[in-house]
């Protein structure tokens, strides 16, 4: 049986849902929710079908779209190889769970119709990225996920913060996309092909010049810097927490931000030929991982902590790509999707239970929410890389790939910090005594919310196991190495440090200003932008007043002067005019006859 129709169902069911909601049912929240959830369930079923279909490796569906000759033709193509099947399954499964969770979390929201419509649009766009087989298609869907993210971050647009955050996210993305587009065009021109297959065949054209290859690779990487919030464009991700928590879980933890890493894995053959670019990529990933971990230790909003944690883990994935360990990066992406979504949904449950309180110092003693506390613990352990949980295996794979480079120690230190701040989080929120009224009255969340939590906890444990991962993604055999032990010890040290410092506290004993103030990046960027705009404005004013204005003023003066001079001819004396006539005639005669 051909999987083509199934693939099409997977991709277009959410689009149909989004279209239906946008055109017809936006006002009715419940109907929209129903349509959206149904669509994502259909998508999930179809994707399981695709996954289980035998012998399904690389049928590419290709339809010509824009065709202006052999070199300038953009097809619409879907590629369904192992990489995309894996990603597809992750996206649809996490997406389904989050849709179900949203039914409860957003039950009282006024904009439910809008929310689910944007959510369906996002599913469609993300799956488009997963299936795209050429750069142009991927770029189109890349922008579409940006749009969905914008719509969803700014969902509560009546407040002042969400629209600003949505703008910030979109703009940071666009800056990255500028480089991305340059890279796409460069590769297109050099290899004369836009599809990934075609580029892979002609990649030697790029490797001919090392500077060309480096530039192309780095330009492509710019897209990831924007989309996956790497340093220096990381500033949008923490602000994106202004959106509803399920959105944060789906988009800014599990899938969209992972699209950057996925794209790098997709075009890995382009990156391989540029070792300088790979070094840069790995270092940027490492710096992001470390910096985000440092900042996370001093944040007090539960979602911000998780956001910086996401940044940190994305840094790990990018670092892995840079260290030529594409499989490790993808594996970590998969496990991270599950446990980070779990953590975010758990935080959403906590926030819901405490009546929309997000400050961890106003919570405490929430272990009386049994399902939430237990699943959150599982997620935390997976994130910290404790043995037997999924994160351990994938994070280790990355650290093993980093052996022999200074990034190894960067990764280890970031792992220590990860354990430290996650323990801080868990201890302050769930253990100890309740600190406020709301926390005292908190009770367990409804089934629609706790169900996905449980369902996500399962892969958070087992997704790292060999058989599971091998089916999804073949990995290198580990050489015998001490790294797993060292990494586990580091994590446990972090846990201990967290317990010691934060057990039984009511306020944070530490205050390290650079971490708390996020290294002042936002302020720096604001000043930079203001400076540039002032410069541009002054320059434009100068141009307008003195260059263009000068020309116009000269024209006007010339006309005025000419008028002033010529009007002297109108002296009103009839005979004077006659004299002028005569003079003119005489001149004419002279000219003609003599």
């Amino acid at each position, binding site marked *: 049986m051909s999987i083509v129709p199934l693939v099409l169902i997977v991709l277009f069911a959410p689009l149909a849902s989004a279209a239906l909601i946008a055109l017809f049912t936006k006002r009715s929240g419940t109907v929209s929710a129903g349509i959206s959830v149904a669509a994502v369930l259909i998508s999930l079923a179809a994707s399981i079908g695709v996954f289980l279909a035998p012998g399904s490796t690389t049928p590419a569906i290709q339809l010509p779209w824009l065709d202006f000759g052999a070199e300038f033709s953009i097809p619409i193509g879907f590629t369904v190889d192992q990489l995309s099947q894996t990603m597809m399954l992750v996206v649809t499964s996490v997406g389904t769970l989050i849709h179900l969770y949203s039914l409860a979390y957003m039950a009282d929201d006024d904009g439910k119709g809008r929310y689910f419509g944007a959510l369906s649009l996002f599913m469609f766009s993300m799956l488009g990225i997963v299936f795209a087989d050429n750069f142009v298609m991927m770029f189109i869907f890349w922008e579409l996920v940006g749009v969905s993210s914008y719509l969803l971050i700014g969902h509560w647009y009546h407040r002042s913060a969400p629209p600003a955050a949505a703008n910030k996210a979109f703009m940071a993305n666009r800056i990255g996309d500028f480089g991305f587009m340059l890279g796409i065009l460069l590769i297109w021109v050099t290899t004369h092909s836009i599809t990934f297959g075609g580029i892979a065949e002609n990649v030697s054209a790029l490797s001919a010049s090392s500077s060309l290859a480096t530039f192309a690779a780095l330009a492509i990487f710019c897209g990831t810097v924007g989309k996956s919030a790497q340093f220096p464009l990381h500033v949008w991700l923490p602000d994106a927490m202004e959106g509803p928590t399920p959105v944060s879980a789906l988009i800014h933890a599990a899938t969209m931000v992972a699209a950057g890493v996925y794209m790098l894995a997709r075009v890995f053959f382009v990156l391989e030929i540029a070792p300088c670019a790979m070094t840069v990529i790995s270092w940027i990933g490492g710096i992001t991982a470390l910096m985000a971990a440092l900042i996370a230790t001093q944040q007090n909003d539960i979602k911000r902590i998780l956001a910086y944690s996401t940044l940190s883990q994305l840094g790990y994935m990018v670092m892995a790509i840079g260290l030529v360990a594409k499989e490790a990066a993808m594996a970590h992406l998969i496990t991270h999707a599950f446990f980070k979504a779990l953590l975010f949904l758990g935080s959403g449950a906590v926030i819901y239970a405490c009546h929309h309180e997000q400050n961890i110092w106003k919570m405490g003693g929430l272990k009386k929410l049994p399902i939430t506390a237990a699943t959150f613990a599982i997620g935390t352990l997976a994130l910290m890389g404790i043995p037997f949980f999924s994160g351990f295996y994938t994070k280790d794979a990355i650290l093993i790939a980093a052996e022999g480079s200074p990034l190894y120690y960067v990764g280890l230190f970031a792992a220590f910090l990860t354990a430290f701040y996650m323990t801080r989080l868990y201890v302050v929120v769930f253990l100890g005594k309740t600190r406020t009224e709301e926390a005292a009255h908190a009770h367990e969340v409804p089934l629609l919310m706790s169900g996905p939590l449980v369902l996500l906890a399962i892969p958070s444990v087992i997704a790292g196991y060999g058989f599971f991962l091998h089916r999804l993604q073949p990995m290198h055999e580990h050489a015998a190495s001490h790294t797993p032990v060292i990494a586990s010890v580091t994590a446990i040290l972090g846990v201990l440090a967290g317990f010691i410092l934060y057990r039984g506290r009511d306020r944070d004993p530490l205050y390290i200003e650079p971490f708390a103030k996020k290294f002042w990046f936002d302020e720096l960027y604001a000043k930079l932008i203001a400076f540039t705009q002032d410069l541009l404005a002054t320059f434009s004013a100068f141009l307008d007043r003195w260059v263009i204005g000068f020309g116009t003023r000269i024209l006007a003066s010339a006309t005025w002067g000419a008028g002033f001079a010529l009007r002297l001819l109108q002296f009103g*004396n009839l005979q*004077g005019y006659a*004299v002028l006539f*005569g*003079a003119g*005639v*005489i001149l004419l005669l*002279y000219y003609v*006859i*003599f």
Partner: protein
Amino acid sequence: MSAILFWVFSILMLGFGLSVILQRNPVASALSLVASFLGLAALYVTLNAYFIGIIQILVYAGAVMVLFLFIIMLLDLKAEARRKLNPAGLIGGGIVVFLFITQLLAVLGRYGPGQRTLPPLEGRIDDVREVGTMLFSNYNLPFQLVGVLILVATIGVVILSKRELK
């Protein structure tokens, strides 16, 4: 013989023309112009253009100048009083006229074909018939148009000289 006639009437015409522009009394100017036209008509006749000559007297001296005199009387124009002369205007005008006459003499000096004499004519010139034939055959359209023109001029004059209706 014809040369004497030519000179006599030319001098007459030019002399009275000078008188037109030098007289201060407008009636005297008008009458000088009439005399000038008579000289001109005589010159036409020396050129064997009898019809034109008669028309000149009938229309110009007889109708146009009468109209001029009529208007002069109507407006009761007095002799022109002496006014301050404008030197710039005088000099400018003088130069222009002088240059014109110079150019005229220069052109005529080098105009070769102008040096022939009267070509001979054969038989009686029945120029009224010739003019009439040509007028009503070759120049029929202009003739009609001129008729319309005169009509329009008449209407225009009537309207222009209406007083404001109170």
